[in-house]
């Protein structure tokens, strides 16, 4: 070796350490164990935590942008009037705007669920592929052949319960009547939670215009959310249904402090 080594000069008779097969094998096994633990930690904590922040931030930015575009009168600040809920700004049902079906991966809406946390928000994109559900810019995917927000029928979305932002981790905390707000570039749709269903993973009938009533003509405007059940496992699906209550152009009072932040 050309590198000077002062230690070797002072300790000349040090025997070479031999690398034993068992020693290397043991170290490899220990390494494998650490890697598995790291993977579990990444999957359940790091991944959820980091992506949760990124998805929240992306949704907040989008909500703010839509709010600023929608009304020159509001000027980016939420309307102070409480008329949003059940007041004069709620038009007849025929006046509820419904967007046309978007292209795959196109951004549809921002969802706010105060029961999941007052600062919880997520972007909804078209399609339920992993490119949407695992995205740091989205997190919630819209089933491609189901209705749009505000439409008569079933606006159905899916998200992870654990991992990749853990969007629907607290789904089982929803109570009857809990508000679920869906913001599009048109305004705010307010849905009220109605009920749960626990189904098998292949139960696509929950996406029907009238869930689990194939071929029946829809008259309600539903929001259906699907996620894995139980948390951290995938044996079942937890389905939440909510019914449209109102539409308003300005942010509803309950989330006015969050929109545009």
């Amino acid at each position: 070796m050309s590198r000077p080594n002062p230690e070797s000069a002072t300790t000349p008779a040090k025997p070479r350490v031999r690398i034993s097969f068992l020693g290397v094998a043991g170290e490899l096994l220990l390494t494998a164990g650490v890697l598995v633990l790291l993977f579990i930690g990444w999957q359940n904590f790091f991944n959820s935590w980091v992506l949760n922040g990124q998805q929240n931030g992306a949704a907040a930015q989008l909500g703010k942008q839509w709010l600023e575009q929608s009304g020159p009168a509001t000027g980016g600040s939420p309307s102070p009037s409480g008329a949003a809920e059940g007041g004069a700004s709620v038009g007849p049902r025929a006046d509820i705007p419904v967007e046309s079906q978007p292209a795959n991966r196109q951004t549809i809406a921002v969802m706010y669920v105060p029961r999941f946390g007052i600062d919880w928000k997520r972007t909804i994109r078209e399609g339920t592929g992993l490119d949407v559900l695992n995205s740091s810019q989205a997190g919630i995917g819209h089933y491609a052949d189901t209705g749009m927000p505000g439409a008569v029928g079933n606006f159905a979305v899916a998200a992870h319960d654990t991992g990749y932002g853990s969007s629907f981790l607290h789904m089982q905390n929803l109570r009857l009547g809990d508000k679920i707000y869906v913001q599009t570039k048109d305004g705010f749709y307010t849905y009220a939670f109605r009920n749960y269903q626990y189904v098998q993973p292949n139960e696509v009938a929950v996406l029907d215009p009238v869930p689990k009533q194939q071929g029946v003509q829809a008259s309600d405007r539903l929001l259906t959310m699907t996620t894995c059940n139980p948390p951290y496992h995938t044996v079942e699906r937890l389905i939440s249904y909510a019914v449209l209550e109102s539409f308003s152009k300005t942010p509803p009072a309950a989330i006015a402090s969050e929109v545009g932040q």
Partner: protein
Amino acid sequence: MYAALWRVLPGPWWLRLIIVLALLAAVLFVLFEWVFPLIDGVLNKNQQGTVGT
């Protein structure tokens, strides 16, 4: 194996320690950014919270 790595590294002990920590950070970054997402995609194909897939 790791003892051999330690002997191969140049410099005094604190420099070796810094190099080892830098190596660890690099390995962790590669794992978190690319390897774990790849493994997760293979292991949990049916874990998207969707019905009918």
